[in-house]
């Protein structure tokens, strides 16, 4: 019996007993309630065929009481269901799908194994249209008024993937504003728009009809030049927004927390992880529509707050892992065991796993080989341990997936078996084989054998390596005393660690000293004053103002930073560092800025409003110009906060002087998330929004002592001339000019725009590639105060996770020098950007020496050494040569 597969959006079928999806955690088979036996006490075949006896129909629901000190709610979101809006014809027209449906169609594990097919005739669509903002940015019954914040960019991703599936496919995106406000999103948008046969079309649309013969769908839209047009598409994708999680009311009642009007957690602007109930925190999209990086760092952030609450109990429930004593097998001949994984059907569907295992047995040094259904499953890992002990194996090869995911787990398995973990070798026959050669089974099996043969050859040369336990200095260094730095400092200090907070200026506060109110109504100065006071009063936080960093030495767990405060020098020892150095506002060179004092930036206007400057607040006409100094060739990024800032200040002006006219000249209004409500409010308050394009940018002129702004009116098609009392420029947010120097000092990297570059844009958004150094706030990318607070707690969470340990482990795969071969030429010293290699005196000679703790194991020094004296352990010349020879069939 087959049932609609929920994971694949009910497009294809699956069985009642199944794995939820290929990457599910835990990756176990389960029976869902479509099971005939559960429904009607029929069938039960699975019970009799399961050799492991894993099927147990007598299992019943269990209730478990758990005592906890805090709760984190991370219920996520639901995709908006467009059935609520009948005009989209979802569920009615076969070839109208949601973006979630389409996401599954694009995926290799999707309903048609990665082929995009139409439901009506299982043909490839050649002409696909996306409709943006489905269920979002609308006050209609059944829709959500907020912007779902992620759809513009996920649509662009789907367009790119569609073109990768079928280079001839024509893609049209019908959109409102394009909100590419995230880090590197602007470039991504340009990249998508520049593809052949990709059109971005700004228009509201309606779905008109379905052709009963072809199943094609006609869309009606309006054009600036040719009026209303109709066009037929093979497939229409509804870019549905994000809705609150299912049964959010039940959740809020159960945990006794308040929700906002949209059905998400009712957040405090100064602590978005908090709920209305003490001890209950939220993370991820339950704060509101959110992208992946924010979900990741709010998770660490909520964790950090729980840490503040429960720090006194840290580690009380954990037990130390004990491994059996490591056996010295270095003198033994290699006795290799090979375990070939089916990965469910991921590998065995394509690769003849049995024949690979049989082949492995014929290879030199292989003592044992077998197949496994899932090598990573707990029972399989136990089996590997048991067999390793029983057969006396001293090398283990897991022929399965990429080492990136599971190498750690299998190394642990080897430790459990009492042999050194570096005797593990993984042969990647999934990503490198079955997944990419789905159509060539025989060749794939041959390649899997080749890969295993290479692994065996390498295994012969593997050596046992020791990892280092490095003591951790429990203090943190935080660079930058703005909201980001102070928030991180407080959270770390509240978890019992000393914090050294460095500020370049003579007082704390950073950029926030120029901010007075947020769009939601927070009094920034009052909040800031409270924060500064808490920092100065905290016994564990040591503030240095007027600080200059003169040098950073050491490595994760053991840094030493030299600081000069204008009077004396200090050496600070610390285990981690957080870079929270903020950003600056661009000083415009355009629109007569600096030439006429009536032309100012948003921050300057905000300062005037806050100080009660009547000329600013009572101006009859204010013109704001967006995207000044960014989204251009020189700075190809969106500064993210300026649209919200303009709306905020426009509303403030309207509040002070309802009669005054406020114009906002914009390219795309990027009031994402709940900020959309304020954009709507501004429109309702008669703030006039006029769209311009970079080709016809506005002009600011002085006409007989008065300021005039000229701009094309896209609605009327003529040129507007607005006499302005003041012109406010939404100036770009720039990375600090000293980022480069600081990045060099801390040995961290910068993005192309000179903001700090995180280790992974989605998955490791507060870490640097350099261990023990973290980032947060606007130094990472422009962001609102609330977002900064999220990320700062997130960085604190990651930092404390490291500081909470007494030791950090340094890899055993580091370089070592054979002093007999070393001629002290110094090439290795020059190649190492970490300073891990130094020339030292050995007797009367100089020889290179490696500090294994600093060595990152990249092996650059190996390739520049003319005598082969320096060698990277675990990636030695012998290991590579063995692999190369084996690859060529030896």
């Amino acid at each position, binding site marked *: 019996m087959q049932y609609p597969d929920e994971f694949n959006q009910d497009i294809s079928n699956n069985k009642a007993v199944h794995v939820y999806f290929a990457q599910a955690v835990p990756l176990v088979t389960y029976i869902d309630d479509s099971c005939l036996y559960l429904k009607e006490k029929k069938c039960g075949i699975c019970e009799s065929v399961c050799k492991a006896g894993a099927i147990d129909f007598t299992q019943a629901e269990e209730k478990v009481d758990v005592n906890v000190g805090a709760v984190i709610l991370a219920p996520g979101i639901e995709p908006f269901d467009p059935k609520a809006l009948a005009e989209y014809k979802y569920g009615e027209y076969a070839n109208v799908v949601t973006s979630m449906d389409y996401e599954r169609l694009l995926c290799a594990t999707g309903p048609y194994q990665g082929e995009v097919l139409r439901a009506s005739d299982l043909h490839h669509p050649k002409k696909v249209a996306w409709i943006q903002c489905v269920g979002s940015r609308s006050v209609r019954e059944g829709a959500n008024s907020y912007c779902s914040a992620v759809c513009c960019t996920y649509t662009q991703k789907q367009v790119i993937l569609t073109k*990768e599936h079928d280079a001839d496919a024509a893609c049209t995106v019908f959109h409102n504003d394009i909100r590419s406000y995230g880090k590197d999103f602007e470039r991504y948008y340009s990249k998508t728009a520049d593809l052949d046969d990709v059109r971005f079309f700004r228009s509201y649309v309606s779905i008109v009809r379905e052709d009963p013969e072809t199943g094609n769908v006609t869309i009606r839209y309006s054009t600036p030049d040719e009026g209303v047009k109709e066009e037929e598409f093979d497939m229409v994708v509804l870019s549905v927004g994000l809705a609150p999680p299912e049964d959010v009311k039940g959740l809020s009642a159960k945990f006794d927390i308040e929700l906002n009007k949209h059905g998400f957690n009712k957040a405090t602007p100064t602590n978005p992880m908090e709920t209305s109930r003490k001890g209950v925190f939220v993370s991820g999209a339950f704060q509101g529509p959110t992208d992946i990086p924010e979900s990741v760092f709010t998770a660490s952030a909520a964790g950090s707050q729980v840490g503040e609450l429960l720090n006194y109990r840290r580690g009380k429930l954990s037990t130390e892992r004990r491994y059996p004593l490591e056996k010295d097998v270095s003198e033994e001949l290699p006795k290799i065991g090979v375990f070939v994984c089916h990965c469910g059907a991921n590998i065995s569907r394509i690769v003849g796993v049995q024949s690979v295992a049989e082949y492995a047995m014929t290879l030199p040094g292989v003592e044992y080989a077998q197949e496994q259904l899932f090598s990573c499953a707990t029972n399989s890992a136990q089996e590997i341990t048991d067999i390793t002990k029983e057969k006396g194996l001293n090398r283990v090869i897991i022929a399965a997936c990429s*080492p990136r995911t599971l190498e750690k787990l299998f190394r642990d398995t080897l430790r459990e078996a009492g042999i050194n973990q570096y005797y593990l070798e993984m042969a990647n026959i999934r990503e490198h084989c079955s997944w*990419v050669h789905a159509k060539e089974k025989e060749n794939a099996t041959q390649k899997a054998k080749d890969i295993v043969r*290479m692994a065996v050859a390498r295994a012969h040369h593997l050596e046992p390596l020791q990892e280092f336990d490095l003591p951790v200095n429990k203090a943190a260094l935080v660079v930058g005393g703005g909201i980001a730095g102070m928030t991180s400092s407080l959270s770390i200090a509240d978890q019992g660690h000393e914090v050294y907070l460095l500020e370049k200026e003579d007082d704390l506060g950073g950029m926030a000293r120029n901010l007075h109110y947020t769009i939601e109504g927070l009094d920034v100065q009052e909040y800031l004053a409270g924060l500064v006071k808490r920092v100065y009063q905290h016994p564990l936080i040591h503030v240095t103002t007027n600080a200059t960093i003169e040098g950073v030495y050491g490595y994760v767990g053991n840094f030493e930073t030299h600081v000069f405060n204008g009077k004396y020098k200090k050496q600070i020892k610390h285990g981690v560092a957080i870079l929270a150095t903020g950003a600056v506002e661009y000083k415009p060179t355009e629109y007569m800025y600096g030439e006429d004092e009536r032309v100012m930036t948003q921050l300057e206007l905000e300062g005037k409003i806050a100080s009660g400057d009547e000329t600013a607040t009572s101006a009859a006409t204010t013109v704001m110009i967006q995207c000044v100094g960014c989204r251009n060739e020189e700075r190809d990024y969106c500064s993210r906060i300026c649209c919200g800032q303009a709306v905020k200040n426009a509303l403030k002006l309207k509040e002070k002087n309802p009669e005054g006219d406020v114009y906002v000249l914009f390219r795309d209004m990027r009031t994402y998330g709940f900020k959309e409500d304020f954009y709507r409010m501004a429109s309702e308050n008669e703030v006039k929004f006029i769209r311009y394009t970079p080709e016809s940018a506005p002009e600011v002129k002085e006409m007989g002592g008065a300021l005039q702004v000229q701009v094309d009116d896209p609605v009327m098609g003529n040129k507007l001339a607005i006499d302005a009392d003041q012109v406010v420029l939404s100036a770009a947010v720039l990375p600090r000019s000293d980022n480069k120097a600081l990045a*060099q000092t801390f*040995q*961290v*990297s910068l993005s*192309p725009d000179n903001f700090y*570059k995180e*280790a992974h844009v989605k998955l490791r958004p507060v870490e640097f*590639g*350099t261990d023990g150094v973290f980032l947060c706030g606007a130094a990472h990318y422009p962001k609102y105060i609330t977002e900064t607070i999220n990320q700062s707690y997130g960085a604190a969470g990651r930092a404390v996770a490291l500081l909470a340990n007494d030791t950090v482990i340094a890899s055993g*795969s580091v370089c070592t020098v054979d002093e007999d071969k070393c001629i002290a*030429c110094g*090439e290795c010293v*020059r*190649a190492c*950007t*970490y300073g891990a290699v130094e020339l030292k005196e050995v007797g009367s000679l100089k020889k290179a020496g490696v500090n294994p703790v600093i060595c*990152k*194991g*990249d*092996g*650059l020094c*190996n*390739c*520049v*050494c*003319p*005598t*082969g004296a320096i060698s*990277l352990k675990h*990636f030695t*010349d012998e290991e*590579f*040569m063995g*692999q*190369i*020879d084996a*690859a*060529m*069939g*030896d």
Partner: protein
Amino acid sequence: MRVMCTGRVDLSFVLRAFERGADGVFIGGCHLGECNYTTHGNYYALRMASLAKHILASIGIDPGRLSIEFISGGEGNRFAELMNSFSEEVTELGPLGEKEGLSKDQLAANIAAANRIVPYMKLIERERFKLAYETRAEYETYFGGDEFKALFEEAVGEKLSTSRIIGLLEGGPRTTAEMADMLGMSPSEVAKYIRLSSSHGLVRFDEGLKSYALA
């Protein structure tokens, strides 16, 4: 083969693969300038591969058999395209040596000659070809230009030719004409390198055999 950084890919690995009969070698790394660390080892790889291509050309192997490309983790399709097109190119070139018109023995001797100068290459690579360009195009312009050609001929070509002659003489004494024939050089070129090698004390003239032999 997995390396932790393309900067770990040694010239000798590339030569070893060809020595063992590989028809093509592909090196894949992160995009230039986008190192997640501070190492930027992919520039090392690019320099190595550019030099390697010239060395391959000097020993009669089509440099198109070596490819280096920079691909991010998010560019699966591009990776597949690059692999497929490289695979096509190599198929087009056919088995190693065949199109080049080199016998198995000649190939082995030539690669062995190149292998012998790897330590030397490492010494001069940093000394003579210390380049700090940022883009691939700049590297390609440099490595395709006359300045580099002259420098390569002066710094490497000579060493390589000498190494090939030494390799040949390891098998026994030879006359200039024999060597010129076997190495595909002109007799005057061979004479030039013989002169150099004998001045370094590597080669001597065997009066009895009327041939050159290892000193």
